[in-house]
């Protein structure tokens, strides 16, 4: 504005200071990540070694993929505890499909295609189930998703009878161990999903609606936002992405164990979202922040391990970082 008047001047000071805080907050996580990287380049041998980079990124990819869905759910003011269990469901289904004798043996791609598609759709359907409990029955998200947290892994175990399923299907394993241009395939997937969802949050009606529902549900409804559909969509998407992450994990391991696939994933995902700067109260979300949050947690763990500090201690540090991140956000809100 060319001619700022009195009113503008009066509001511009708090604006500047909150802007400053906002900048510090957004880039705070990024700066912390940068500091971690610089520290490691300086003090951790072989940190920039492609093998190290790849292994760090490979480990973080499933967490990020799940956490992206979690970011959307949290942006609407919800939470999804079922993601780990849904990973197990998808992980249990896929081998059953491509190892199935019902499929035509001379067209292996059909089997692989179905083994990728069906488990993800099933996980997505379970996500929709969560969403309908939240949107139609108005059950608190934590309880609504607790149902599948408990039952979901059980379903996976029942389907596989709790047995470890080993397989050597190279076509399927590509999503876990493929290395186009030397980059792990799941890292490409991760980057694609993060970029895609971040883009969608900024440029699509869906993204605006997600934030509107979390920011002020009553106002959003009065402005014509389809609140119920949006809630269904975010939980469905969260399930779908959890399904994909489950497939990646079993593809890496060449085996599917319903007892362990995705265990504790809900905690890692929520932690990444919180550290990344998305408040658990909803209304704001940063997908890139979630990626940064997951990378920070991963790198801290790596750094501590690389310097001989046990994994257990890394958990304590992780806890402290989560609390600090949430506390800083709260300060900003006040």
């Amino acid at each position, binding site marked *: 504005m060319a001619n700022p008047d009195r009113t503008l001047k009066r509001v511009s000071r708090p604006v500047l200071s909150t802007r400053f805080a906002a900048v510090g907050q957004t880039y705070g996580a990024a700066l912390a990540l940068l500091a971690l990287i610089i520290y490691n380049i300086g003090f951790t041998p072989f940190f920039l070694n492609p093998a190290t980079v790849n292994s760090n990124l490979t480990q973080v990819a499933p967490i990020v993929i799940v956490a992206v869905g979690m970011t959307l759910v949290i942006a609407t003011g919800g939470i999804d505890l079922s993601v780990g269990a849904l990973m197990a469901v998808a992980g249990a289904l896929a081998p059953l499909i491509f190892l199935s004798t019902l499929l035509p043996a001379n067209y292996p791609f059909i089997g692989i295609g179905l083994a990728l598609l069906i488990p993800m759709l099933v996980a997505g359907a379970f996500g929709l189930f969560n969403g309908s409990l939240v949107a139609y029955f108005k059950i608190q998200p*934590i*309880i609504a998703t*607790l149902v599948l947290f408990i039952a979901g892994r059980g379903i996976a175990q029942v389907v596989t009878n709790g047995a470890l399923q080993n397989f050597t299907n190279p076509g399927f394993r590509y999503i876990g161990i493929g290395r186009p241009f030397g980059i792990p395939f799941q890292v490409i997937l991760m980057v694609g999903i993060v970029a895609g969802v971040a883009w969608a949050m900024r440029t699509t009606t869906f993204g605006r609606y997600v934030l509107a529902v979390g920011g002020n549900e009553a106002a959003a409804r009065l402005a014509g936002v389809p609140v119920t559909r949006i809630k269904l969509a975010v939980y469905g998407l969260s399930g779908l992405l959890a399904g994909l992450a489950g497939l990646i994990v079993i593809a890496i391991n060449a085996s599917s164990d319903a007892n362990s696939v995705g*265990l504790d994933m809900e905690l890692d995902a929520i932690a990444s979202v919180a550290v990344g700067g998305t408040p658990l109260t909803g209304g704001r979300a940063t997908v890139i922040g979630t990626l940064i949050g997951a990378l920070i947690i991963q790198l801290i763990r790596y750094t501590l391990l690389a310097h001989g500090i046990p994994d*257990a201690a890394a958990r*304590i540090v992780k*806890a402290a970082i989560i609390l600090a991140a949430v506390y800083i956000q709260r300060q900003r809100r006040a």
Partner: protein
Amino acid sequence: MATVSTEPSARRFTFNRARAASLIQRQGVLIALIALIAFGALRYDNFFSVYNIASVLRYYSMFGLIALGMTFVIMTGGIDLSVGAVVALGSVIAALLTPYGVLPAIVVPVLVGMVIGWANGWIIARLGLLPFIVTLAMLLAARGLALLLANNTSVGITLDPGFVWFGQGDLLGVPVPALVMGVAYVAGVILLRYSRFGRHVLAVGGNEEAGRLMGLPVDRIKLGVYTLSGALAALAGVILAAQFNTGQPTEGLGWELSAIASVVVGGTLLTGGMGSVGATLVGVLLLGLIFNILNFENGHGFISLSSYWQSVIRGTFLLVVVLLQNRLAQRRRS
């Protein structure tokens, strides 16, 4: 003085219906438990055997203890996700302290649990962070501490007969852990029903603002419930170590969510303000018996349901209860 008549018939009507609704809700779970016990007793020969009853009680006493603490936390409108990890931490500390005698091995873990719970409560009440994220961070920290102390493996106990008795012994034919649980529940009932603290817990959960206006020490009440929850979780950890002769840093995974499920099945509102200690115990036993019955059914030989069905059934059960409570609540509102 004139007696004011306020449509006595209409009043009695709403009053009766609400009472009937709460009766069905509370006793419904008890009826289900009795039905399940009757079913088991009629169908399986050894179901009512002393051995079976004792072993069920011995194992589920641990869940009973953490669910008791969780009941108090949830009644204030909060949640405690750290209990499963505190169980593990308690078991490790207890095992490490067995060389120094029974008393330290029992008392010190409980004290540590109290400190952790107190820290939860302090951060929640004083810094105003969400219980969900605070106790999630504490989950990570307590688990990390347990693994650190235990050096990532289970810790054998010094076979002190007194300590072993605490987990495996009987007193007057009743397993000691079951007795501990029984005493805790009796104390819990008295605390909730006959102490100011208990009534204030319910008042704060029912309407925190009103509680403040009435001059209740809201912060102190919150500190109290989280401290209690931490102490009971650590006590469950002591029993775990005494029962299995080891401190197990990786045990207790997801126990917090099982405890929440028991509390919700027992009819305690997750939004706070209403709950029953006795009903939580019924919820714990009900969810525990489902596993027991499945075992018997498999032994019976007619059908073979893998033990994995238990979590599917538990999840379904939780869903049914939550939907039922939701309908009752909606009817009451209209």
